[in-house]
């Protein structure tokens, strides 16, 4: 199985380890070292950007009249900022729980192929099934990209521990960012709050653009972005469902005919 279609640019297509490219720390690493070196990935640029985005999420939670506990809880049990923002934004607009759940599930379907494409790295004969199952909770865009980028170069027996570390670190960055954003929002002028709130959508848009590899992706971005505001005016309850399903399907069909 290849990961070429979903892999970020620069990631190797093959799963085989290349000993020469393995990071220096991994040569005589234990499970604990691999885990720890995963956790500190939260201090890399993607981890910092995630933290910044989570600041915006924390601000949004306060803006919507929810609590610090809600911000932390969502970061832990969902750990995927688009879905977290969706929940808070939809509740703030007074959407029904069914509408919220539907919108959330549509943002989450993408996690299925992402999880599948990561399995060759984390599944191993003799590995702990419980830990392998726990690892899928960390499948979200940032940890997934970092996993795809780093795991292929590691010894097979270190990969699961390393990915668990990356996931724990990224959840930590999200939860800390949400909490800091929530607390800061109360002490900030409106302009700063607006600037923080603004980071979340900008991050989603830019990371979607950064992950685009095919004209299908570009069309999906353009159609989704174009359709959502139009449909919102016409039927605000279903705007994102329509924009996602119609925009995505048209982009997929166009990508097929073009190829």
């Amino acid at each position, binding site marked *: 199985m*290849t990961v070429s279609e979903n892999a970020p640019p620069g990631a190797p297509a093959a799963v085989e380890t290349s000993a020469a490219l393995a990071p220096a720390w991994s040569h005589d690493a234990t499970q604990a070292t691999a885990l720890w070196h995963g956790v500190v990935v939260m201090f890399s640029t993607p981890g910092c950007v995630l933290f910044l985005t989570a600041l915006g999420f924390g601000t949004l939670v306060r803006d919507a009249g929810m609590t610090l506990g809600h911000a932390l809880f969502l970061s832990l049990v969902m750990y995927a900022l688009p879905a977290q*923002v969706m929940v808070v934004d939809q509740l703030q607009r007074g959407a029904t*729980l069914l509408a919220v759940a539907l919108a959330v599930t549509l943002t989450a379907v993408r996690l299925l192929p992402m999880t599948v494409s990561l399995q060759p790295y984390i599944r191993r004969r003799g590995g702990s099934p419980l830990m392998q199952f726990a690892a899928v909770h960390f499948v979200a865009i940032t940890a997934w990209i970092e996993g795809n980028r780093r795991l292929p170069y590691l010894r097979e027996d270190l990969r699961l521990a390393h990915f668990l570390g990356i996931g724990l670190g990224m959840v930590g960055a999200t939860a800390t960012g949400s909490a800091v954003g929530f607390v800061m929002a109360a002490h900030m002028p409106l302009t700063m709050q607006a600037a923080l709130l603004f980071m979340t959508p900008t991050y989603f848009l830019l990371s979607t653009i950064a992950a685009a590899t095919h004209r299908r992706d570009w069309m*999906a*971005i353009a159609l989704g972005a174009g359709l959502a505001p139009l449909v919102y005016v016409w039927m605000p309850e279903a705007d994102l469902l329509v*924009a996602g399903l119609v*925009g*995505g399907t048209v982009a997929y069909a166009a990508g097929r005919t073009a190829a």
Partner: protein
Amino acid sequence: MSATLQDGYGGYLVLLAIAALAHEPWRWLGFVLGRNLSADGEVFLWVRAVATALVAGLVMKLLVFPAGTLTQVPSLVRAAALSGGLVMFVMGRQSLALGVAGGSILLALLEVARSGGFLALLW
């Protein structure tokens, strides 16, 4: 105090239910299907396109029709800041950090300029 969600355990239960019923199952399914599915299959290309369009739609909704504090920022300023962030992202070799931070700083600067002076930033 919570305007949009019940206080106490009720609110948490709602969030947990949404996460466990609408969000997490896709990860579990990916785990179960595991190696038996190719991540490059046609269905997944469609799923990816739908998710991409949906996230792009969410972005536009948050920016064009924001729900909270962002409503106080005029739409022209929001559009200018987004364009600025995009330009910085592209000029900076697709640097997410530059695009995200740059767009937000631009928004704040435009707002300060609009509301009269940098003293407002301190208040």
